């Protein structure tokens, strides 16, 4: 299993690799796209954060692809806005055509239209979590249309990931591993991600709210309010999936993903190192119990390893 890492700092490619990065993904920002389609049109899910999340223009990422390939590492370019108009797809065709001439390992695509475009232009397609591949029937649909890899949603159980990967083993799978949990589905969370305001999940957490129940008496309302308090204050303030690594290694999952395209490179490197170290431990362990005893925890353990509320896969530790 490889550690898939956001490449958001060109000067530190070697630091990412030294920490244990096995693959990179990268996005770009294109002023020509914005001029053509407007400020609200996304090339990828973080276009609204402009150069903060996508520090490179398209020509630069073509250079970076060659630089990374010269080091023998895989790299993918992300096109994961929720959907694109016909006109936008034709614009993207130019990007894909140029990418096809590089040694890029694939494009991360969010919709069937881009899958089709990738096929037409001869670029390998990785199906983004934005596509919402929640079950084996959906995997089958994408597989039959030429997907190279499926990025499984972060709101799936480990058991479900195991069932899917066993049902359709001749497919590469990728899972979420570190940073930035999400309380909704990547595939159907349709609020804008932009600099001006936080994502809708944060707006909801921070808004004035009325918690209502149609059950009478003190206790039902108390229970609903208490549950909402925990949800708002403690659920997925951070996210980590390290404890599930043993199972993922045994399932043959191809890559685990560290998110955070707008995060500091040092913080990303810290996470890479812990994930890589734990993959190495998992590969040597003979049982999950042994792995859970032997595994290394990140420095933030005190804060995040509490009651499963910051776990991508809490069912491993908190059964």
């Amino acid at each position: 299993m490889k550690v898939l890492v956001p490449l958001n700092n060109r000067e530190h490619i070697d630091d990412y690799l030294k920490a244990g990065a096995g693959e990179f993904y990268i996005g770009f920002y294109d002023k020509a796209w914005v001029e053509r389609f407007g400020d609200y049109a996304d090339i990828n899910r973080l276009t609204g954060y402009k150069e903060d999340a996508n520090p490179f223009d398209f020509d630069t990422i073509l250079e970076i692809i060659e630089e990374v390939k010269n080091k023998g590492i895989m790299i993918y370019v992300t096109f994961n806005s929720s959907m694109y108009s016909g006109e936008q797809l034709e614009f993207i065709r130019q990007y894909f055509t140029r990418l096809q001439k590089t040694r890029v390992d694939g494009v991360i695509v969010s919709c069937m239209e881009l899958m089709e475009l990738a096929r037409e232009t001869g670029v390998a397609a990785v199906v983004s979590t934005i596509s919402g591949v929640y079950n084996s029937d959906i995997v089958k649909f994408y597989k039959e249309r030429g997907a190279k890899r499926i990025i499984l949603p972060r709101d799936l159980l480990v058991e479900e990931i195991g069932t899917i990967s066993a049902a359709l083993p001749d497919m590469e799978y990728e899972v979420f591993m570190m940073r930035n949990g999400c309380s909704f589905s990547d595939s159907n969370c349709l609020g804008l991600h932009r600099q001006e305001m936080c994502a809708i999940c944060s707006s909801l957490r921070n808004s004035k709210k009325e918690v209502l129940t149609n059950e009478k008496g003190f206790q039902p309302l108390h229970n609903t309010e208490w549950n909402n308090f925990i949800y708002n204050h403690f659920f997925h303030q951070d996210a980590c999936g390290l404890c599930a690594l043993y199972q993922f290694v045994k399932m043959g999952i191809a890559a685990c993903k560290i998110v955070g395209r707008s995060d500091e490179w040092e913080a990303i490197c810290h996470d890479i190192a812990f994930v890589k170290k734990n993959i190495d431990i998992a590969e040597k362990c003979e049982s999950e119990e042994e792995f859970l005893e032997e595994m290394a925890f990140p420095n933030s353990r005190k804060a995040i390893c509490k009651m499963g509320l910051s776990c991508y896969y809490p069912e491993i530790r908190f059964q």
Partner: protein
Amino acid sequence: MAMRQDYCLNFCEMIQNLYEKYVNFDDAIEHCLKEEGEENCQRIYFGSSFCGQHFLHITNKIVSSLAEACMRKGIKLTLVIPTFSERNLDRGKDKIKEFAAFCENCLDEMTVNDFGMLDFVSKNYQVNLNLGRLFMKDYRDPRYEQYFHQILAPKIFTGYLLNLLEQYPITGMEFDPTHEGIDFSAKPEKIQIGIHLPYCYMTVGHICEFASIPVELEKKFRPNIQCQNECMKNLIRYHFDDEYKWMRLGKTIYFWNKSCKIVGTDQIRVIYFPYKWEVAQ
């Protein structure tokens, strides 16, 4: 020329509440129509767009009662199928089979919300198919006024959609009222457009806040946990100092946008969700 509107009721996500409140669906239908000043309802949608657990919890008794009322009133039924997580996929398919059998005489349409289910239903049922609201992924966000106050041209009307229409018996597409208005002039000719009113869904996930209410702390907020329909008893209203009546109903966050203008088509299905934000408690 005035636009023809076919009025339909959407009992998805609330059918159990209606059943408990009205005992029979003749009364529920009459009440919902009266509240909106409508005389007729051509079709009722039932099932769930958003939640596999909710779908699995709908009993055959409730569906049977709905089907009998619809037979008496000459109303057609559309079964709405959510995206099932892997662990619920087989049970979901079994449930579809049961519902189809109970509604044999008035069920002529199913709405699917993912490609896997599109393929499955088209191979196993002789019904018309709708692409459900989870297929329509144009961003919607009334927090950004400039973005919201526009007439949206939905992005889904692409060449790929035309290919899909050739492969599957898709006759309809369901949209949410995402913007100030929506222009359907680019829709494929044979496609029936349905618009969900008065609420637009903005976000949804497989983790349900309400399902975690009775669950011990370390097991809260897990995907698709077994629930006891807590969504039928609880609601959260959010106040952003705007007019959009935000709410969390089940796993889904909605905002209110009843006045969404529809242009570019001379006929539309209004799929009305008779949920009352103001009185819900």
